[in-house]
């Protein structure tokens, strides 16, 4: 066991866990935020996706010991305080989720994509989301929502996530 300091959604957390504990379980069981999901435990499905300094990572296969105290971690709970992130709004607009279990991961992967690539092509979307499975098959609605979120972020760049 060891004490680790991590910064999640702008807030510092001190946790006392084994060094190989995946971030996923630190966030869910220790910090108590359950929007980040367990899907496969091997980084194959993307349900556990969070952002590490703006880039998507698979929290189920990222040990806490690899995280520095100054690293910025963002989970679905931290993407906006009132469900106002343009990707969330587009997801609602297009009624993307079915069961919804994979969507936290999908939304974070998309938020990161749009930060670095404000106007992604379909091929860019395919690449960015290749690691995120949706068993319900909401892929086509996601694609629509991504294009519409991209548009709204260009019109109103202030709504971009921090």
């Amino acid at each position: 066991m060891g004490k680790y300091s991590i910064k999640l959604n702008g807030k510092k957390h001190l946790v006392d866990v084994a060094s190989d504990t995946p971030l996923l379980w630190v966030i869910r069981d220790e910090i108590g935020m359950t929007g980040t999901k367990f899907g496969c435990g091997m980084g194959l499905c993307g349900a556990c996706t969070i952002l590490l300094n703006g880039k998507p990572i698979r929290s189920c296969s990222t040990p806490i010991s690899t995280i520095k105290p100054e690293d910025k971690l963002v989970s679905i709970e931290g993407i906006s305080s009132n469900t106002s992130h343009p990707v969330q709004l587009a997801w609602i607009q297009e009624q993307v989720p079915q069961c919804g279990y994979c969507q936290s991961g999908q939304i974070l992967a998309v938020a990161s994509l749009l930060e670095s690539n404000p106007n992604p092509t379909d091929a860019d979307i395919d690449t960015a989301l290749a690691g995120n499975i949706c068993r319900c098959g909401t892929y086509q609605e996601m694609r629509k929502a991504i294009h519409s979120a991209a548009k709204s972020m260009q019109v109103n760049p202030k709504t971009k996530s921090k």
Partner: protein
Amino acid sequence: MSSLDMKQSSRRDFIKISAQAAAFLAIGFDSLANGTGVKVKKMPHEPHIGVEINPYVLINESGKVTLFNARPDMGQGTSQSIPMLIAEELEVRLDQVEIVTSDGSDKFGSQMSGGSSSVSTRYLPMRTVGAAVKEMLIQAAANQWKVPVSACYAKEGRVYQKNKSISLGYGELVASAAKLPVPKNPTLKNPADFTQIGKSIPRPEVPSKVNGTAIFGMDVVIPGMLYASVAHAPSIHAKVKSYQGEKAIASPGVKFVLKTERKMPHASTEAVAVLADSYYSALKGKRLLDIQWESAEAETMNTDKYFNQLHEAGKSSGFEYKESLKGDVEQAFSSAKQVLEASYQTPFLAHAAMEPENATVYVQDGKVEVWAPVQGPDSLVTELAAYLGLKKEQVKINVTFLGGAFGRKAYYDYVLEAAHLSKQINAPVKVVWTREDDIQQGPFRPGMLSVLKGSLDAQGIVTGFEHKMNGASILNQVFKVPLGNAPDPWAEEGINLHDSPYAFPNRRNSFSLISTQIPILWWRSVYASNNLFGQESFIDELAHAAKKDPLEFRLELLKDSPRFVAVLKKLGELSHYQQLKAQGKSIGIAIARSFSSICAHAILVEKQGAGVTIKKVYSVIDCGVAINPRNIKAQVQSNITMGLTAAIKNEITVVNGQTQQSNFHDYAVLRQGEIPEMEIFVMMNNEAPGGVGEPGLPPVAPALCNAVFLATGKRVRKLPFDISQVS
């Protein structure tokens, strides 16, 4: 799930529902005491207080309306569609009410989401519930105002007096309304006056699914609970010979190492569980277990052997479905111009919902409470009460959102496992299966073999058609119904005369049972997912043998079934079928009725190298009254994706008792970049509502393979197949 629930709803069911609805209302006005014995840190619902007008409607004095949804939501949209049926008649907007999933208690009747039956069986009963409560509220207002009922109307949670600016909120009326008699035959709205049904209203739970607040079973936290990770046998049916848990128990956070059992309907297997104060500690502890398995008998189980038995059985005539029998196929075959024969094989498949199996259970003296993603809380109450030797009233189920299910979460082995552990330690236990548990332990969609034979006369008209199904029986294994010399009634789904009205003068369907110990269960669209691959591929083979266009061939055979004709014609139009055919494009079609809805797909492929690529999928669905057209399209998309995955990705194989696949690397599902464009059309009509969650799936594989045949000349008769290398 009772067999009645699982059976497709038919027009007959639609008519008899009104009588049932009256019975619900007769239950009366018990006030609801909804306190739980446990303080819940993280669960969707706080106790609900108010006047229970009937089990489904609760109104408190401030006017807050709570509607109970007795069909768990696994992504198919029942947390909107079912309460909407009440809300439409009750004259409340869905965004004004709170929606709560029912808890399994008897007063809600059947609560199973399955067989695409939710809307089709609830359409009239739930509307009747809403209409009756509305009439009582109006009556209460009329009494207070001393005016006739005809001078009042309800709108958005209030009763108004016509032509006057007086109104009373439902909260002000509920106490007096609750004392009135329940109308036995309330007047239902004219569909033309619907303000919610038939509109693509945004689903109320969607925001919670984009901000992480929706609570799935995986997210439940009960104070004092321990997390359990279970070491299941590598060979599914093995027993624990002995185990050493010292290293595990010494691991940080681990509290208990316990032998447990996995109780399936047809067998119990043994396992060893590690319980810890966090899930990861439990998982790490499990890796430190040393278990010796008794598995000699379990190792005799092989999918290869099973399929060999199916091919052997396919040579016999099987037990015939008497109701589907027409004329004499043998005579038709012997006098035909052409006779075709072909066998089609479909594999075992895992459900692989994104949320692995999990359950939190607290067994206490004389009671048990469950927090879990389950498809049917009522059937879980029955099963758990029997398992623990409790009365049904001592069992309470809190249904969470289901992170996908596809049939799997109506099989409660994972809940019973948590109960078995909680009982041993007298504390709440949350069992979380790994993805490997999910993929490897089953139950699976059974692999089946369709043996087809058909004959044509000199004009290319079908004279005889025989479909012999061979394989395992869910009814027999899961429900222990002995079949004797009868075919499995469920296994004819999608090809019985009602579902498949092809005008064959001579016709015979039969079934040969090949039992297996491999755990099996319904998987989205159940046997229709197996049957239609053979049936609709073989229809195509007959069309080509008759030198007729496959669409025209079907139209001719279905000319007496106007809804099928309308769907096919619409599909032809939507897909520009004739033009594409004229240009030499490879567009394959298939049509099927399952779960009381008709769905047809046209799939356009292009040859690429030794295989094909899928360019576009066109679909038309006729599900009768459409509750939320946008959601219906979403369900069809979902079925196309799952159907394509089943056709071209991985199968489940069992070798010496052990499942060979384990996670998404070797049991792959389609990803974003692999999804073809889709265009879906929903027929709008006033036919009785049919299912939506499953009917889109059965025609996917045959439409694809029919297109593959056009592009490559190769006929795919075994799923899954490698789309990049068609041979």
